[in-house]
């Protein structure tokens, strides 16, 4: 323990402090420096009693001097707390970074559902046959008509927008099983209640691959 006072502390104050300290049964060693006055006390002093004595004296700072094992113990604890704090900081940094990186990546829906998909191979689709594919999550019928021309139209009847059209090979029409609507290969309404033609898509044949695409 040491007691620290202002450098200009009066002699009477120092003497009265020494009397207090000696009442605890230890010797009083005073050293005056240019920046402070220090009263050094041996480690045997009763620190609780000393704190009690000095409580009233606002002009004195009581500073404990640590024994070496205590100092080593505290240093270890500080080190542990520091690395714990750094670890937690790193963890929360990563936790905040994951949403940001996820946000920056283009949405999955855009990546996995391009505006152009492989609609099938030429040898999979003989004349007067159709194949169902999906473009951006919507069903699309690829049609090979009786003349060998390819068409691609939306497979959802425009009447209720829920019923899926089926190819009727004898009538060469797309028929809706719900309310007897019918469309030709270009998507035009030929029978039944549908109010508008079907959405059509571009068809491109490259080698034996049939691609369908939509704008935008």
């Amino acid at each position, binding site marked *: 323990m040491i007691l620290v006072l202002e450098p200009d502390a009066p002699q009477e104050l120092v003497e009265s402090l020494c009397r207090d300290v000696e009442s605890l049964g230890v010797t009083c060693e005073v050293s005056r420096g240019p920046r402070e006055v220090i009263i050094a006390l041996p480690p045997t002093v009763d620190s609780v009693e000393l704190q009690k004595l000095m409580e009233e004296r*606002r002009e004195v700072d009581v500073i404990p001097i640590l024994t070496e094992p205590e100092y080593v113990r505290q240093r270890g604890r500080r080190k542990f707390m520091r690395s714990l704090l750094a670890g937690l900081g790193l963890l929360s940094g990563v936790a905040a970074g*994951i*949403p*940001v990186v*996820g*946000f*920056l*990546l283009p*949405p*999955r*829906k*855009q990546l996995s559902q391009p505006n152009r998909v492989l609609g099938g191979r030429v040898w999979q689709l003989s004349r007067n046959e159709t194949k169902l594919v999906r473009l951006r999550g919507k069903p699309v019928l690829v049609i090979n008509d009786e003349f060998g021309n390819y068409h691609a139209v939306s497979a959802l009847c425009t009447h209720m927008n829920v019923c899926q059209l089926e190819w009727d090979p004898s009538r060469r029409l797309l028929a809706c099983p719900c309310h007897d609507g019918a469309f030709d290969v270009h998507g035009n309404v030929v029978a039944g209640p549908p109010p508008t033609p079907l959405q059509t898509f571009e068809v491109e044949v490259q080698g034996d691959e049939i691609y369908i695409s939509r704008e935008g």
Partner: protein
Amino acid sequence: MRSKRHGVRRTLWRAMQQPVSPRQAGMMRFVWLLILLFAVQIVTGILLSLYYQPSPESAYESVVFILRDVSFGWLLRGVHYWSAQLMIALGMLQVIRAFYAGMYKGPGRIHWYIGMLLFLSILAFALTGSLLAWDQTAYWGAVGAMEWVEAIPVVGTMMALVLRGGHQVGAATLGRFYSIHILLLPWITFYLLLAHLWLQSRIRAEQVPMTPKEK
């Protein structure tokens, strides 16, 4: 330019390093919380602007896209929205505190005025930002707010015209509010904040004497 940036950094550094008395500490706690929230707003705002499209045809669609399709879009939009709400609440509390501490009087009252301007800029952020969602609430909120502006004597009609870009809230208003929200206000707020912190370290530190133990 270099020296200016240095000045900005020095002001911030000094404000952060300065010892504060217990009396000041309560006030400064809210100021630093507001600065933290402002930083959060800048980060989330920049991220949201990557997907947001400020045109009447696509504004609402792009907000829905952010909420539904972009990963963590709901989270970043939510953080942006809720920290804005929190900033308004904290700003109000700070104004009330400063008022009861009598900061509007004395030689340091310029500090109070800048604080009030900062609070007004928070409200301006909220007003311009709320229109950007471009749904019914946003639209009619802006229509109502512009009628308030029109009620200001003498200059009200002109101010409303400038802000709206016309007689009705429409495409021009959306563009203007967007520009004010992401370009004008952030910089105004930033420099007001710097002035606020600089005055904090200059004026308030002298006004509130510290006890010998704090020295």
